[in-house]
């Protein structure tokens, strides 16, 4: 809502505040002021001039040579506007004048003729192109005849006004009018305001003899009032009205339209004027539209209606979509002489539906959608009649033709001052309270501590005690509330175990050299199904998609964080940032339904993506690219952090390198995977060798047990033995390790691979793996013989299970 301070000043005396002070007060009492701006930048030296003569420039076809009287002197001005003419009163920037943009006007010569100033267009005076009346949009502005030559054009055009822009919350639609703003400002500054009474002179003719009104759907249209005004002369509206409309951001058109718009801004009540002679009947029937019914609206668009929409008809044909837009057929035109003026109350839902369906959000529909003041509907009609008779020569017929079933009663809200003070933490007295209601202009009856307040209908947002609590608090001043702390029983705040573990996992990854990333949960349908961990893929029947995505890139919920993580890597690599180690902890969305009806399961997972070099230390020629074992080392560290043991089993997964991928499990339950991204996908993404992992954190957290008991530090020495085994290439280190650990139990405490060899000293298809075994009994010193026995058991076991030979 744009509020002209000059206009507001006419209603409430705000002259003792600077615009900034006033803005601050309004903001603090309840409506946020978004900006305070002058209508135009400072303009100097622009006056009204009279064009005495206007001839063609002797040396230029498109220029005019004008003699313009500005007070005592007459200036010769060369003017290029096509609409300049002798006898006009125009805005003249005299030599020395300054126009917006610090544009200085000087005496000059144009094609050999002296030009001592400039005749201005409204745009040149700083008015927004969209607010300039069409007749002046590509030429100079012409004043009405009654202005005085030499007068200050800046104030005549209201260019010295200040506009305060209010950012209205949806509940404060009462301030969508100058009257509403005036009530609010008066309450805020403790001033006075009351909407002035309408003064209408009517003729002897009764409107009801010319028109009747039938309302078909009272719920959608509880009140419809129609006034009839004859003898209208369509022409420009007075300059002051045009100025105010411009200040409010509405383009002036002609007096009839301008008056309906002016009252809309003044009262907050949308009105509509039909041309009586083009309406096609003497009966107004408002009803639900028929499915498929058509209307051509003012903007020359043919629109197809249905039963959700309310239309104003002549009994047969629709002439307006109620509250949204009028029809082209009965539009007021320059030859219109008799006007039907509609002042109605349309239900918010029916207007919202129509404006939404047709994409027509207007000043009118916005107000109807939020609910207009039932006590101001008819008054707004009267106000427009008053202005039409004053400024459009109209004769107002006696009476309003109406159908009326509108509830105009005021809501009653009982307010106990003790409850107010309990809820606010204040000590407001009965006197303070009375004063607050006086400022708000709410009437009340008081009985002891209870105020029974009647809420004016302009404040449709107030219905219950808490609404009144806010009214009291804001006029009392939020600044004046004390600072207290809650008095209830205190509780120890803290993190749950899973929240703590989540933080632990994150800081582990960061300590391990990974950066945390946050990617979008909504991804493309293709990406949502890529790089999904096998246990997720098994469960998720189909990815969950939005009904109406804004773009295909963000239309489907992820089943894996990896595709977006890889996109992040690509983004960086494309910007020459090639060594990257990223992780993300977040949820994926698993639905076990073909057609989603229930909330998907949201599972917390951790994903990592690494590419480029891991350790680089150039001057020592150290350079290690990220490989499978860098990524695996990070996962192993995670398992240590959580005191769990991960199993790795080679696997073939889509989009992954078939020979360098493993499924990860805990206690034989699959929890994720790790490996190299398939080279084809790498290439597609512009990535070099890239390794990823994805793991279910929730399962890990469930299995995690906080170590609480002390474990004795072994006092007895351990014995370490090395063995080198020759096995077939396909035999994995992990399986041998497991065989050793099983056979050596309980004396073998640790098995570590320390060498892998393949080459000329071995037969083809064979490899040698060397293990270091640690034997330990925590409570006694081991005898050589025991170790020897265990060692032999192990050698037999690996021989039997893996045909492993001791390497000689």
């Amino acid at each position, binding site marked *: 809502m744009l509020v002209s301070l000059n206009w507001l000043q006419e209603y409430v005396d705000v002259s003792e505040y600077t615009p900034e002070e006033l803005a601050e007060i309004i*903001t*603090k009492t309840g409506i*946020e002021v978004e*900006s305070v701006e002058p209508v135009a930048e400072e303009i100097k030296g622009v006056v009204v001039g009279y064009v005495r003569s206007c001839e063609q420039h002797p040396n230029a076809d498109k220029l005019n040579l004008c003699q313009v009287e500005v007070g005592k002197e007459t200036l010769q001005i060369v003017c290029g506007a096509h609409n300049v003419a002798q006898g006009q009163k125009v805005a003249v920037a005299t030599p020395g004048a300054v126009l917006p943009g610090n544009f200085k006007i000087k005496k000059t010569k144009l094609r050999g003729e002296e030009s001592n100033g400039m005749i201005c267009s409204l745009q040149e005076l700083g008015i927004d192109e969209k607010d300039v009346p069409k007749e002046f949009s590509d030429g100079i502005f012409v004043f009405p005849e009654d202005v005085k030559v030499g007068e200050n054009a800046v104030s005549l055009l209201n260019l010295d006004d200040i506009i305060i822009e209010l950012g209205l919350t*949806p*509940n404060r639609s009462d301030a969508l009018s100058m009257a509403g703003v005036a009530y609010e400002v008066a309450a805020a500054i403790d001033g006075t305001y009351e909407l002035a009474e309408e003064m209408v002179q009517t003729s002897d003719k009764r409107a009801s003899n010319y028109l009747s009104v039938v309302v078909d759907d009272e719920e959608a249209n509880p009140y419809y009032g129609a006034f009839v005004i004859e003898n209208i002369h369509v022409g420009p509206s007075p300059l002051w009205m045009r100025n105010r409309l411009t200040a409010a951001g509405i383009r002036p058109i002609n007096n009839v339209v301008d008056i309906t718009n002016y009252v809309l801004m003044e009262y907050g009540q949308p009105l509509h004027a039909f041309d009586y002679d083009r309406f096609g009947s003497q009966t107004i029937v408002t009803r639900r539209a028929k499915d498929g019914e058509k209307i051509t609206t003012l903007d020359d668009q043919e629109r197809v209606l249905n039963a959700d929409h309310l239309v104003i008809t002549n009994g047969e044909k629709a002439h307006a979509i109620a509250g949204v837009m009028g029809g082209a057929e009965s539009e007021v035109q320059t030859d219109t002489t008799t006007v039907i003026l509609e002042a109605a109350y349309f239900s918010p*839902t029916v207007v919202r539906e129509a404006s939404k369906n047709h994409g027509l959000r207007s000043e009118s529909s916005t107000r109807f959608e939020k609910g207009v003041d039932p006590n101001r509907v008819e008054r707004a009609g009267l106000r427009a009649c008053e202005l039409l008779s004053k400024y459009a020569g109209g004769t107002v017929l006696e009476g309003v033709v109406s159908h009326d079933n509108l509830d105009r009663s005021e809501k009653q809200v009982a307010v106990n001052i003790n409850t107010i003070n*309990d*809820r*606010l*933490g204040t000590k407001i007295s009965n006197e303070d309270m009375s004063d607050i209601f006086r400022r708000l202009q709410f009437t009340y009856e008081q009985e002891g501590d209870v105020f029974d307040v009647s809420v004016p209908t302009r404040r449709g947002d107030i219905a219950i*005690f*808490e609404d009144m*609590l*806010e009214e009291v*608090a*804001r006029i009392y001043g*939020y*600044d004046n*509330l*004390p*600072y*207290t702390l809650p*008095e*209830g*029983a205190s*509780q120890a*705040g803290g*993190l*749950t175990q899973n*929240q703590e573990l989540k933080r632990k996992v*994150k800081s582990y*990854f*960061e*300590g*391990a*050299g990974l*950066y*945390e*990333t946050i*990617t*979008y*949960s*909504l991804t493309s349908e293709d990406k949502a199904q890529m790089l999904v961990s096998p246990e997720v893929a098994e469960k998720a029947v189909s990815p*969950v998609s*939005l*009904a109406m995505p804004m773009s295909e890139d963000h239309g489907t*919920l992820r089943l894996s964080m990896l595709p977006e993580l890889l996109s992040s890597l690509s*983004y960086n690599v494309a910007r020459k*940032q090639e060594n990257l180690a990223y*992780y993300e902890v*977040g949820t994926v969305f698993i639905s076990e339904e073909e057609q*989603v*009806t229930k*909330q*998907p399961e*949201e599972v917390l997972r951790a994903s990592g993506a690494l590419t480029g070099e891991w350790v*680089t*230390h150039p001057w020592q020629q*150290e350079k290690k690219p990220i490989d499978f074992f860098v990524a695996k080392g990070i996962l192993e560290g995670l398992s240590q952090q959580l005191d769990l043991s991960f199993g790795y089993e080679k696997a073939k997964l889509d989009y992954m390198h078939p020979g360098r991928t493993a499924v990860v499990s805990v206690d034989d339950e699959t929890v994720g995977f790790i490996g190299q991204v398939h080279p084809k996908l790498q290439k597609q993404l512009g990535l070099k060798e890239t390794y990823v992992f994805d793991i279910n954190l929730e399962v890990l957290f469930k299995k995690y047990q906080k170590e609480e008991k002390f474990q004795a530090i072994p006092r007895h020495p351990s014995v370490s033995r090395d063995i080198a085994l020759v096995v077939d290439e396909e035999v994995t280190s992990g399986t041998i390790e497991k065989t050793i650990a099983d056979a050596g139990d309980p004396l073998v405490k640790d098995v570590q691979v320390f060498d892998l060899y393949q080459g000329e000293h071995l037969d083809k298809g064979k490899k040698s793996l060397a293990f270091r075994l640690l034997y330990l009994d925590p409570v006694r010193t081991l005898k050589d013989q025991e170790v020897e026995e265990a060692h032999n058991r192990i050698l037999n076991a690996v021989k039997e299970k893996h045909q492993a030979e001791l390497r000689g």
Partner: protein
Amino acid sequence: MKERLEQLKQEALTKVEEADSVQGLKDVRVEYLGKKGPITEVLRGMGKLSKEERPVIGQLANDVRESIAKAIETKQTTLEDEALEKQLEEESIDVTLPGRPVQVGGPHLLTSIVEEIEDLFIGMGFEIKEGPEVETDYYNFEALNLPKGHPARDMQDSFYITEELLMRTHTSPVQARTMGTRNGKEPVKMICPGKVYRRDTDDATHSHQFTQIEGLLVDKNVRMSDLKGVLNAFAKQMFGEEREIRLRPSFFPFTEPSVEMDISCKVCGGAGCSVCKKTGWIEILGGGMVHPNVLEMAGYDPKEYSGFAFGMGPERIAMLKYGVDDIRHFYTNDIRFLEQYHKA
């Protein structure tokens, strides 16, 4: 004999003094203290001496032997030290060469902000609650006093999945869910951080996905002045003791009265500048007293219980605190952005 011993001592000490290597010193030791050395020889000839002379000469011979041994030892240490020093000198390195880097990572700026806020409220006795990002229409809207067709639903155009399911548009449903578990009796004191989603086109100030942290306290006798006190404590800890806070009226369907909180502008100290749009204040969060309809739907009697709620956007806070100029930076994961904010 006595003279001979004295002479040997002098000779030996001179040679020790002159020795310039560990080997040279060894030679001196062998020469004088060895089994075939002159001192041994002297001792061997002791048989010829008288009973009285024998202990005297014996003593002297031992003294001479000891002083030579001591001198050798001392010299040896000196020579070793010199040798070591020389060796260390040769091992000298350029200490200004760069060290072997340790791979470092770090948290995302949003996580740092969220955890900082979490920790502040944990300190005030709040617990942390989480909830689903795909919500039901009921918890996202209806339980928060936003029935179907409510005009305020326009404020946050949403991503629907079905008519009843949508991406949550705020973290408030977590509040409704938590209240619902308390049988309308036990108090609630919680904050809920999380991702939220709105139908916005991504640009410098809008993101279809962003983060929110909301707080809720429900108990008997909760006052609006408590909201003011708690938010004040939070703002001062988060933004600095010197910052002023200001509450002003606002509107949210789930609170009444509703407030918006501003903090005094850090850049201009309240005088007005381009950062605070000349107002001296910067909007930080919204909140208010829990709407009685919300309490009622969660099973609390609004006559007996009251509460306050508030919500804020970590992106906005990060943008204000660190001057991040484009919200998309938080989701692009440009390493040059991430690297700037890893904390020790």
